[in-house]
């Protein structure tokens, strides 16, 4: 990992996203992954089987501290903390009045909407995007906005009743129960509720004795029985931490291995098929060959390299637009004559696969100056070569666009292109609307990509050897 980006997200009930990059994207979550072609190959992104760790325990028992300590010790960009506070039910008028008098029982399982929680956890487990509700403690109501979680490899579900619902237990890969003595819990709770939730001490204490304590006996404590690990709050949490980290690291390693094995399998399958008719390799006219020669020449000056790459990129984008949807349209010329022409069937937007795809920006904006442009950073792990999604931000209405151009400078094994297309499909973009535009690609990568996503169109500047190193972006950005 090269960057300052840490995309660890902590979804807190007030909708604040703590941490670095936001993986929040709005738009329809409905991914149309319907199989239209019987023989299509299957690709599962590494986040398809997210590991979920449940951390339960009484209020103030140190759940969030433990969660954050785990995230910190892992120091990986794909670990997300999901607080169950986000799943409080909105209160009706009666209950709301009670709540403001601190007479509503927030510490019973009934206050939580387990149906939605289970639903969202199942989505995440399936590798889909999940919209997490945002709950306001000041208003005692769910806000209209939601926070999206997409593509974590590990999810930490943290809440008093994280181990309560049997449907949730089924989805958990590890169950932790935090234990603390009641005095510590009460004092922690007073401090937190005053500071973060705007309550007064009297109300907090009232709530404690009428609800928190009785509920603890009845609902919270029994969760010990289903836990894999019980973490005592008073003691140092080092031992527990080490256990949890090791478990997660092992899980991630397995996922990475599966992902890479799946990519290799696709590679083997790809070899036995001819290239899809939806792969368009640019005609090698004398200008194309001449420009390619200048771009490939190691002795070309940076000025010339950038000039010719921009010129060629504009041609690739023009070609990419030919696969966009058009409809007939009659226009009247200044001579008052009709002409039956065409117009685009809707908005065309672009998504740049960083960093290489950014070399296309000049060419793209020469063709569509105001093109809406999403970005995603996919990098290959230096050690394993596995592609990893580090950053993602897409136009909100991308699922409504008539065509989406996916831009990347080079495609070698096709691993990052597969991931990029999967991300678009997960955000509601139909395969048929996606056109991948790339300067150069090997046959293998093209095969692999079109086997998994037969609906997409690919425009390639020129064919190169398989597994060519990514040199275009180095030359374009000069570092």
């Amino acid at each position, binding site marked *: 990992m090269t960057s300052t980006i840490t995309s660890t997200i902590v979804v807190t009930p007030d909708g604040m996203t703590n941490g670095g990059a936001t993986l929040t994207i709005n738009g329809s979550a409905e991914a149309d992954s319907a199989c239209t072609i019987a023989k299509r190959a299957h690709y599962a992104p590494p986040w398809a089987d997210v590991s979920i760790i449940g951390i339960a325990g009484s209020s103030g028992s140190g759940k969030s501290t433990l969660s954050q300590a785990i995230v910190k010790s892992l120091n990986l960009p794909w670990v997300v903390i999901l607080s169950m506070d986000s799943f409080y039910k909105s209160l009706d008028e009666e209950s709301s009045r009670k709540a403001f008098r601190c007479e509503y029982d927030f510490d019973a399982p009934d206050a939580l909407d387990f149906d939605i929680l289970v639903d969202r956890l199942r989505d995440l487990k399936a590798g889909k995007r999940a919209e997490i509700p945002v709950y306001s403690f000041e208003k005692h109501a769910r806000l209209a906005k939601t926070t999206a979680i997409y593509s974590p490899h590990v999810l930490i579900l943290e809440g008093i009743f994280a181990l309560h619902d049997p449907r949730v237990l089924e989805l958990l890969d590890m169950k932790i129960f935090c234990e603390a003595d009641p005095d510590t819990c009460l004092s922690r709770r007073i401090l937190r509720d005053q500071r973060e939730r705007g309550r007064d001490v009297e109300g907090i204490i009232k709530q404690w004795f009428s609800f928190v304590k009785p509920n603890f006996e009845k609902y919270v404590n029994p969760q010990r029985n289903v836990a894999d690990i019980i973490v005592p709050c008073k003691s140092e949490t080092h031992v527990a931490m080490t256990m949890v980290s090791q478990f997660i690291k092992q899980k991630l390693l397995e996922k990475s291995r599966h992902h890479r094995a799946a990519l290799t399998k696709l590679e083997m399958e790809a070899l036995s098929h001819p290239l899809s008719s939806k792969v368009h390799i640019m005609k090698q006219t004398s200008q194309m060959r001449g420009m390619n*020669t200048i771009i490939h020449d190691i002795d070309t000056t940076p000025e010339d390299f950038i000039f010719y790459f921009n010129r060629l990129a504009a041609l690739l984008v023009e070609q990419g637009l030919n696969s966009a949807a058009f409809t007939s349209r009659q*226009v*009247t010329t200044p001579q008052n004559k009709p002409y039956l022409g065409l117009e685009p069937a809707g908005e065309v937007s672009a998504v740049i696969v960083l960093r290489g795809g950014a070399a296309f920006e000049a060419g793209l904006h020469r063709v569509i100056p105001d093109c809406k442009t999403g970005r995603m950073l996919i990098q290959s792990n230096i050690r394993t070569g596995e592609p990893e999604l580090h950053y993602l931000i897409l136009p909100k209405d991308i699922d409504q666009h008539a065509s989406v151009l996916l831009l990347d400078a080079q495609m070698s094994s096709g691993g990052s292109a597969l991931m990029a297309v999967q991300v678009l499909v997960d955000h509601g973009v139909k395969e048929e609307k996606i056109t991948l535009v790339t300067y150069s690609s090997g046959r293998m990568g093209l095969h692999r990509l079109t086997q998994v996503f037969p609906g997409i169109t690919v425009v390639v500047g020129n064919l190169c050897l398989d597994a060519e190193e990514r040199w275009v972006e180095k030359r374009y950005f000069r570092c």
Partner: protein
Amino acid sequence: MSDIRTAPTQSVGPEYQSESQKPTATVSTPVNFDNVTILPQTPQLIALLSIIRNRDTQRGDFVFYSNRIIRLLVEEGLNHLPTVEHTVTTPVGRPYDGLAFHGKICGVSIMRAGEAMEQALRECCRSVRIGKILIQRDEETAQPKLFYDKLPEDIADRWVLLLDPMFATGGSAMMAVDVLKSRGVPDERILFLNVLASPEGITNFATKFPKVRVVSAFVDPGLDEKNYIIPGLGDFGDRYYTR
């Protein structure tokens, strides 16, 4: 006046789409001369032409979209220039068997509409030399008349890209070619780039100069009684510069 042929209307789109998936549009009228190249009738090209043909299109859009068409035209035109085999070493250390451009070029625009094509030429060939020719219609004879020219001194050693977007009767273009020939440029080193042509213009021109190459984006079915291309796109220079 010439009889107006029926413009061919067909479905337009990439090969992998079935006929029913492709929308219908009027495409370029076929012409049959070896030295004339018409751009591939892609849906994108037709959509760009539809914008600049539309009388309701504002000047800003007209300038932007005509520039995009002209860039495609220039890219195609440059394919007719000579190249030589050239092998280079790539940044990853393997040899790449490519081509190098060969020969000097220059642009010559027929004022004023042809000047609108200079930007696209410069976007493909930086610091290209550009000469200018002013030809106007003589009010008395209705024939084109040469008023002014300023051309590179060594033009006889160069390939010339002659620029004029509207190719109606071909009168000005033929006069411009005569000027170039009088400066020693051989026919086969002249490329005439235009956006919209008429079958009459192409026939006149290609018969007179069978070795001069012509590249057009689109051929309309014919001319009206005032020798305007129809359906056409109006007066290109006016729409680009002053309207």
